[in-house]
């Protein structure tokens, strides 16, 4: 049904998006928690910084990543020389670029559920003998699960289509960083690529739709579990 190049792009897109979400979640939960629960000077600047990828052109994000995480960049160079890890022009790099782009989406979603969480429940847990970490794991985390899930699904769906940051930081290498949108773009640049582009667009469309349906289904189940 799918040509090798198509299934390669599809698989790569899924893998990059999934890895970006996994990479995203722990940091997003931490940042969302810091932004809702702590007060410190520079908090507004920090908040704005977290949301930057929403307003910056993706190419700029890709460029900044290249500067920081390229093999000659301060972080990329250290990673390369100490651990032999190269991010630029690899699929891991594509996942990193995708993660940075969707980070604000995930933070927003988690923050929203942290804001609506009844802090009294954590107080109740505290009077029942639960320490800070225990309370976070046994009360906070399960109760913000719908927000985490919603953020993860949105980030995954958006990650399937990340273009600008990926092509700038990780380039357009077949089998390594050529995800669905990059393959589609390449097809459009090739003579006779119209049919392929249409097929890739259809795949993207179906994938997006499936993602949204799964998200809705999971959200409903979670809500029922929490009795709302």
């Amino acid at each position, binding site marked *: 049904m799918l040509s090798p190049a198509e299934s390669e792009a599809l698989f790569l897109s899924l893998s990059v998006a999934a890895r970006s979400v996994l990479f995203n979640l722990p940091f997003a939960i931490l940042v969302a928690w810091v932004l809702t629960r702590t007060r410190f000077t520079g908090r507004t600047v920090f908040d704005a910084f977290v949301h930057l990828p929403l307003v910056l052109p993706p190419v700029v994000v890709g460029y900044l990543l290249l500067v920081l995480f390229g093999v000659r960049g301060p972080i990329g160079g250290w990673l390369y020389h100490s651990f032999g890890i190269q991010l630029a022009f690899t699929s891991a790099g594509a996942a990193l670029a995708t993660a940075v782009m969707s980070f604000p989406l995930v933070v927003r979603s988690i923050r929203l559920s942290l804001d609506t969480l009844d802090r*009294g429940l954590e107080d109740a847990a505290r009077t029942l003998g639960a320490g800070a970490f225990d309370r976070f794991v046994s009360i906070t985390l399960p109760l913000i699960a719908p927000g985490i899930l919603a953020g993860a699904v949105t980030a995954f769906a958006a990650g399937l289509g990340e273009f600008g940051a990926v092509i700038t930081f990780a380039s357009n290498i077949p089998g390594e960083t050529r995800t669905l949108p990059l393959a589609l773009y390449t097809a459009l640049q090739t003579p006779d690529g119209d049919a392929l582009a249409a097929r890739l667009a259809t795949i993207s469309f179906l994938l997006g739709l499936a993602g949204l349906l799964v998200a809705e289904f999971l959200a409903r189940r979670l809500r029922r579990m929490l009795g709302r």
Partner: protein
Amino acid sequence: MLRVQLYKRRGDFTLDVDFCAPVPGVTALFGRSGCGKSTLISLIAGLLSPDQGRIQIDEDTLLDTTRHLDVDARHRRIGVVFQDARLFPHLSVLDNLRYGAKRLPRGAPAPIGFDDVISMLGLGALTARRPHQLSGGEQQRVALGRALLAQPKLLLLDEPLASLDLARREEVLPYFEKLRDALAIPIVYVSHQFDEVLRLATRVVLLEAGRVRADGELATVSRHPALRDIVGPDAVGAVMSGVVDGTDDAGLTRIQVGDAELVVDELAPPGQRIQIQVLARDVIVAASRPTGLSVRNAVSARVVSVTPDVGRAVLVELDIGRTSTLLARITARAAQELELESDKQVWALIKAVSLRGHVFSAPGR
């Protein structure tokens, strides 16, 4: 003895309290909403830190700002039942009940048994449910069970019935009475409903604008002017504590209150302690012992004071022997005609059917 001394400023509001509560026993924190009751509960539980203060349960110091001692809420072993129950929505009733029990330090004594709590609070049929499948009254019972199973040294009940309608309150109150009589845990009961206080507590701390206005036995505080302001003129009345003597030949229960005896239409076995409020508006003052009246209770009394009350009425404080006191509201004109003044001997008349007694099963303190 629970001893609480706390000072906390929060914007315009200052909480500055100092009171004691017997251990065991029920002490009511009573006051209008906004008087600082909930802040005080948070401070005692350790969920808020005071500017200065000291909290002690018997020999155990939980907080002493002069020594920089502040035991974290999780280690205070103070059970709290909040107005809004605060059951964990993602856990079953059973897991809610076990939440605190699971987190007890290893080897800690657990005198309150799981099965006892389940049966005492009637939770047997609810354990598999989720909090959202419970009625408001059931939620409060589960919250109470959850707090008890964490083996608290002190139980704080923060207006646990305030969010329930009248029928639900009547459904939950008996469980509190049972708990009070069965367990040797000191209880601090926060309420702005005087009838709850009357049913449950023997001691009252009257809070007003963050300060203790009166503090002591319910019988004493019930005559305090500050209480009158809070409960409103219709609920003014002396609270008396008596012991059931037996029943008279008409089936009415005889209660010994100080030197006097009252009969009430209430069933209670002899020897039990009973708390009665005699509303001031239900008391008639007579210059001589009347005859040919339906009234069942005629008590010889001595006038202590006559003070102006609402409208054209006065409030007469009557001593009925052995520190027991009645309040009677009569018109100023009637007081004039009876020539009521301090030390005058009169009769206080109270209809047996207008008295409501609240039984305390535990032996009187």
